């Protein structure tokens, strides 16, 4: 990682607004974005990134290379939660292990978007179908997490107790939480709208909304993310040393896995970084929302805090230029 890239990342407005948000909480400023603005900004970002990706897909079409990439992305989204679950079981009960595994097996759209902004700033091209890869990687971990938690609950359940068998598994409900939750649905839906209209003149009218505002909204959202992340830092004590290390080391491991995948797929430099960041990032909206319902025994202040207060800032501030350097080293400049 050369110093210049680190600086380019740090001296971009979105990252600086993220730092400003962190600082606001740390110095106890009362700055905050009133609810529901953060949710609105996040919906906007999903709609815009989905639509833009869809438009580019409409231009490129679906090639074998793209299909392969999407396939490998889905494999990663299943493998990561499984292996992390077993790592987590070393120290945690099955419910919490499953919820955290699902969190790290899924992706963070905003981390992806920030990486894409970094590529824009360093003038490295990347493809629209990586948004489709992101969309495909969001849900599988949710299903995997729930399955693992249920299997464990079944194994441990003794006849006569009312814990595991009291409520039968409602797979329809879990599938809905996984594949139809608001974030996933809007991202996939916008992707499809973009793909359907990308080659038609009507799509152009959306460009000022989806493209030109994008960096500004990202900056505002990251300001809020900084505020929220710093607020959760206090909860880290509860998480303990094991989970704190987990929240930094596992993203690095997953990034390495992602690098391997990108290399096997022969992705371009830009696409490679995006694939790595998808593997390395952890969900803090879609998965927690789903876990709260599907594994209510798990403690949300563990999985939300790890993902939001540690992994997200780490990826945004250090991960992106670090993975960028790694990709450059492996793929050549």
């Amino acid at each position, binding site marked *: 990682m050369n110093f210049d890239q680190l600086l380019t990342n740090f001296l971009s407005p979105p990252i600086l607004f993220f730092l400003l948000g962190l600082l606001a909480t740390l110095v106890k400023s009362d700055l905050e974005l009133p*609810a*529901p603005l*953060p*949710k609105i900004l*996040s919906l906007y970002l999903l709609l815009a990134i989905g639509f833009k990706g869809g438009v580019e897909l409409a231009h490129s079409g679906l090639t074998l290379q793209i299909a392969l990439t999407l396939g490998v992305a889905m494999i990663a989204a299943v493998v990561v939660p499984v292996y992390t679950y077993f790592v987590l079981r070393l120290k945690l009960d099955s419910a919490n292990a499953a919820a955290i595994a699902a969190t790290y097996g899924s992706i963070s759209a905003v981390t992806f978007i920030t990486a894409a902004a970094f590529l824009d700033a360093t003038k490295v091209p990347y493809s629209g179908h990586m948004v489709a890869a992101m969309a495909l990687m969001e849900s599988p971990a949710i299903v995997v997490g729930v399955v693992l938690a249920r299997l464990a609950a079944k194994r441990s359940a003794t006849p006569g107790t009312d814990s595991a068998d009291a409520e039968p598994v409602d797979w329809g409900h879990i599938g809905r939480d996984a594949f139809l939750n608001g974030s996933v649905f809007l991202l996939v839906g916008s992707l499809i709208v973009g793909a359907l209209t990308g080659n038609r003149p009507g799509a152009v009218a959306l460009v000022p909304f989806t493209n030109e505002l994008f960096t500004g909204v990202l900056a505002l959202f990251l300001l809020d993310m900084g505020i*929220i992340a710093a*607020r959760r830092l206090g*909860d880290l004590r509860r998480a303990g040393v094991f989970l704190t290390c987990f929240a930094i080391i596992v993203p690095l491991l997953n990034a390495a896995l992602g690098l391997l995948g990108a290399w096997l797929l022969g992705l371009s430099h830009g696409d490679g970084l995006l694939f790595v960041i998808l593997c390395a990032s952890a969900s*803090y*909206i879609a998965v*927690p*929302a789903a876990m*709260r*319902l599907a594994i*209510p*025994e798990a*403690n*949300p*202040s563990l999985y*939300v805090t790890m993902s939001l207060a540690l992994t997200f800032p780490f990826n945004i501030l250090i991960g992106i230029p670090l993975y960028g350097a790694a990709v450059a080293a492996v793929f050549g400049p």
Partner: protein
Amino acid sequence: MQALKKVEIILSAPELPKLQRLVEKLGLNYTVFHHATGRGDRGIRADDDLTGVFTNICLLTACKAEQLPALVEVVRPLLKKTGGLCLVSDVLSVIH
């Protein structure tokens, strides 16, 4: 005026759809207040509003004394699972 039991149920927001279904099954009318924050045995619930996972709701229902046991029956498992509070008191309801 009619003597009723006022029941206030504070739960985490993601449980609301389930709670509504259960209360409706008992044939009870209700009112819901949203975006409540709080502090309980499970820590602080602030309205960060990204996941909605940490927000509380308060469902209020005024029911007949004889409907109370069935309601408490269905609420208790929810409280056990994700925490919260269920308060019961006596009220008079204006008949209209």
